[in-house]
């Protein structure tokens, strides 16, 4: 399965970026081969959460590991059947290990406020 980790850098040693829609990088990791693809996130002025959720769908991501997820992204990811795990800390490598050990939180609702993109 392809897993997306929100990071501040481009490899598995990079630290977690705790926001989803406006994370600096999306690190896409193949859970079988550990092959990594880093995508620089360029959010628009409006609807960053929606844009990011759409990218997850387009890239065939099955699970997102991040710090927090806002209401728009939550709604989109849930509709697409993508798992959301929050509370990621440390490096991408630590986070992946925590995910595999089952110690990350799964969520039933958005865990952060939106950022007023509706204006």
């Amino acid at each position, binding site marked *: 399965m392809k897993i997306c980790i929100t990071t501040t850098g481009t490899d598995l040693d990079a630290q977690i970026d705790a926001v989803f829609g406006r994370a600096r990088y999306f690190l896409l990791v193949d859970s079988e081969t550990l092959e990594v693809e880093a995508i620089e996130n360029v959010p628009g002025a*409006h*609807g960053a959460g*929606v844009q990011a959720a759409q990218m997850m769908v387009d890239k065939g991501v099955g699970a997102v590991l991040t710090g927090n997820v806002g209401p728009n992204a939550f*709604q989109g990811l849930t509709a697409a059947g993508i798992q959301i795990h929050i509370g990621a800390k440390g490096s991408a490598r630590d986070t992946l290990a925590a995910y595999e050990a089952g110690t990350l939180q799964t969520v039933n609702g958005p865990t952060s406020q939106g950022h007023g993109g509706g*204006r």
Partner: protein
Amino acid sequence: MRIAIASGKGGTGKTTVAVNLALSLCGKESIQFLDCDVEEPNAHIFLKPQFDTTRSVDKLLPQVDSDKCTRCGACVEACEFNALALMGGNVMLYDSLCHGCGRCGLVCPTGAISEIPHQLGVVETGTTRGFPFARGLLNVGETMATPIIHALKREIDSSRLAILDAPPGTGCPTIAALHEADVALLVTEPTPFGLHDLKAAVEVARTLDVPTAVVINRAGIGNDQVERYCDEENIPIVLTIPFDRAIAETYAVGTPLVDAVPSWRKRFIKLAEQLKEVAR
């Protein structure tokens, strides 16, 4: 002529100045009043208008016919505001992000998108003391104030002197109110916070090419930094209102200052004359 009363900082006395300016001029010339603070209009409390017309302000939301939709994603790609997404095999609409521009419908190759009106708020028009009064009112839960301000400004009768009570801040709603004004009358208080937000408001007005003048309210508190700033920037201070309990008391009971203390009227008339100079 259009006079927009703005401030940057909230609670500096925009409505006090706008209302008293209107009441000082209404016997002398043909005016109209527009309360552009559509998130929290309050000029009606002082001017007590009779409203006779209410018009809905809508945005058009796309509605996707799932039988005609081929899930091609053209609408998602076209949306500048990321209000559409293709999720779980369906087009999802994020109402609050949609600006109602209609681009999604234009790019849809199968004509699957129609538009349905969604109310953002209303514009109410009426009269008070012989002059037209209009206000916009944003519905609770809506975030897009600017379409209401634009609709409200369509009530402007160019043969009248229009007094626009702008929203606080320097964001989109304030810009919508200030756009195409002949002069921005910026109300501030002589405090560091007042000065900080005054500077931001001056920048917005200058970007919009609207000349500025300043009213200092609650004079006597704070310091002289606002006066120094206005001096350096060549912005005329056209009125100073002292920090005075009696003035606050008239405000608290909803009585306009010029009704309570008629001698203020000539100061507001003089202010209007100075504004005409500033507007050139």
